């Protein structure tokens, strides 16, 4: 109903005239939206196609379809550094995998306490929790680095995922709290009558129902940490510990802008996991953004 332009629907034009006018408005909308989408995606698609073009063609060919198709860029790029990209890939998956597990476990436990349990100073702690969502990471950055340095954790994966096991990513606590608040209390009460304790209510009732929020948490944690360049840069020094973003960055420096072919190929490789998640979990992502945003 909201698609009908009011000026048109209330005009005195005959039915067929009105429908055709609405039809053309609709077409114009679609054309504009498609043009916008094409403009936005063009650089990405161009990078994808360039990664299959021979080096000599990249800077002369604006087109999206490679006139000559080659996998050479991928072969060269994969082994261009001292250590092949396989290593960076494995490292990234280890770090990000542990981060995801940590976030899902610790944030769901914390969220359950805030959403369902009664305790002293609850409002105070909840306010603190909310405040830490907006805290810029710079203020904790340097002491954290010093702490990890003292613990001898520099150049290990530990600084990158251990904090996540202690629910430091409070955005997700908030997201799960909002979800649990939507679950009817009757379920808990019924279980309590049957003699279930808090842990059992959490484990057997709330956790299974909360699954969509946990999946959203896992996906966003994966995507954000896969791209996380800054903390990887701080904590991982030796090449064998590098993750995908660090490998790419070293690649840029070593190429110094001379061979974009292999660089594009490896960039595509680095974006691939995020892209696959995006395809698989599109709905979850879109809804996750919308609901968590709205309720803020």
């Amino acid at each position, binding site marked *: 109903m909201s698609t009908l332009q009011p000026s048109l629907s209330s005009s005195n034009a005959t039915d067929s005239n009105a429908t055709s006018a609405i039809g053309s408005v609709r077409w114009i909308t679609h054309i504009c939206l498609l043009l916008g989408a094409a403009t936005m995606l063009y650089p990405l698609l161009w*990078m994808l196609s360039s990664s299959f073009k021979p080096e000599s063609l990249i800077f002369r060919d604006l087109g999206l379809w490679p006139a000559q198709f080659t996998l050479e860029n991928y072969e060269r790029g994969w082994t261009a550094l001292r250590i092949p990209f396989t290593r960076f890939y494995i490292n990234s998956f280890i770090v990000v995998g542990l981060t995801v597990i940590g976030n899902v476990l610790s944030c769901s436990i914390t969220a359950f306490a805030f959403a369902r349990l009664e305790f*002293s100073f609850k409002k105070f702690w909840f306010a603190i929790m909310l405040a830490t969502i907006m805290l810029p990471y710079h203020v904790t950055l340097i002491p954290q680095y010093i702490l990890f340095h003292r613990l001898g954790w520099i150049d290990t994966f530990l600084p990158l995922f251990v904090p996540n096991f202690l629910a430091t990513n409070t955005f997700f606590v908030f997201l799960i709290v909002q979800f649990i608040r939507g679950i009817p209390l009757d379920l808990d009460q019924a279980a309590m009558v049957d003699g279930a304790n808090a842990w059992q209510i959490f484990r057997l009732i709330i956790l299974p129902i909360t699954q969509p929020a946990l999946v959203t948490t896992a996906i966003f944690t994966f995507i954000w940490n896969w*791209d996380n360049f800054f903390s990887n840069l701080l904590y991982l020094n030796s090449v064998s510990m590098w993750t995908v973003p660090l490998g790419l960055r070293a690649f840029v420096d070593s190429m110094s802008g001379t061979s974009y072919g292999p660089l594009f190929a490896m960039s595509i490789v680095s974006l691939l996991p995020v892209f696959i998640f995006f395809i698989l979990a599109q709905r979850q992502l879109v809804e996750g953004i919308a609901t968590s945003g709205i309720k803020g």
Partner: protein
Amino acid sequence: MSDSLIISSQSKRSGIASRLGRRGKENLVAYLFLLPWLAGLFIFTLGPILASAYLSFTDYDLLTSPEWTGLSNYTRLLTRDNRYATSLGVTARYVFLSVPLQLIFALLVATILNRKLAALSFYRAVYYLPSLLGGSVAIAILWKQVFGMEGLFNQFLAIFGVQGMSWIGTPSTALYTLIVLRIWQFGSPMLIFLAGLKQIPPELYEAAEIDGANPVAKFFRITLPLLTPIIFFNLIMQMISAFQAFTPAFIISGGGGGPVDSVLFYTLYLYQHGFSNFRMGYASAMAWILLVLIGIFTAIAFLSSRYWVHYEDETR
């Protein structure tokens, strides 16, 4: 607390014990659940905040123990450090140009998408994709090429016979390529706007139509006022995140902030001091000034919000 005191004066001893016992048990259980988060809060958040406040008044290089220098880090930053002033200016221009433009785009596209369109989920997905990828090293590399001398953008301009230049390599334009990069990522605020638009009751529009309002009037009289809480939310979140931008500036400038410090973002300069020169005290002072600045702008947004943010039920 006061509740249990009142009861204690009235009821029998055994009653008090069981009452307090239950309350105590409730607390014990809840705090057990909270234990991981509380540990994280003190070890990784509150402790470090206090520590960085202390360090900001010292000289500390990680090897020798911190040496108290009073306010000297702050006075030096605010009066004598020219690169710091540059980084403040760069960051301010970046934040105050990119965030409003990004939000205007997001709102515009969301308004267009907020109708029963065929292929709506396709458009939504396509417009959202850059938000997911935009912060990555790979996209920064792509940007470096697109806006380089022989880049995609110049090839596009050449079609119209326009002679381009290296937009990334020219001090006066480098920052604008990064602003474009941020606007390109308008998808996530757009999704939040879209969800907000769906909440506006259609009856309002129907009533306006009866009164003969045109689409423009409907947008400014109904849509915009009812969306102000969401505009406010997006503004705060995007502003805070823009202040902290790092990766694209680091990649396109090779970590230096050039050309001629034109993309020397605040975080980049902080990184250089803290982790290239290991001047931890100085970097902590920078972190605290940033916290205060973000705090001030968030406070301005909050305080001004009562004049421009409209809540449907005023009890909230």
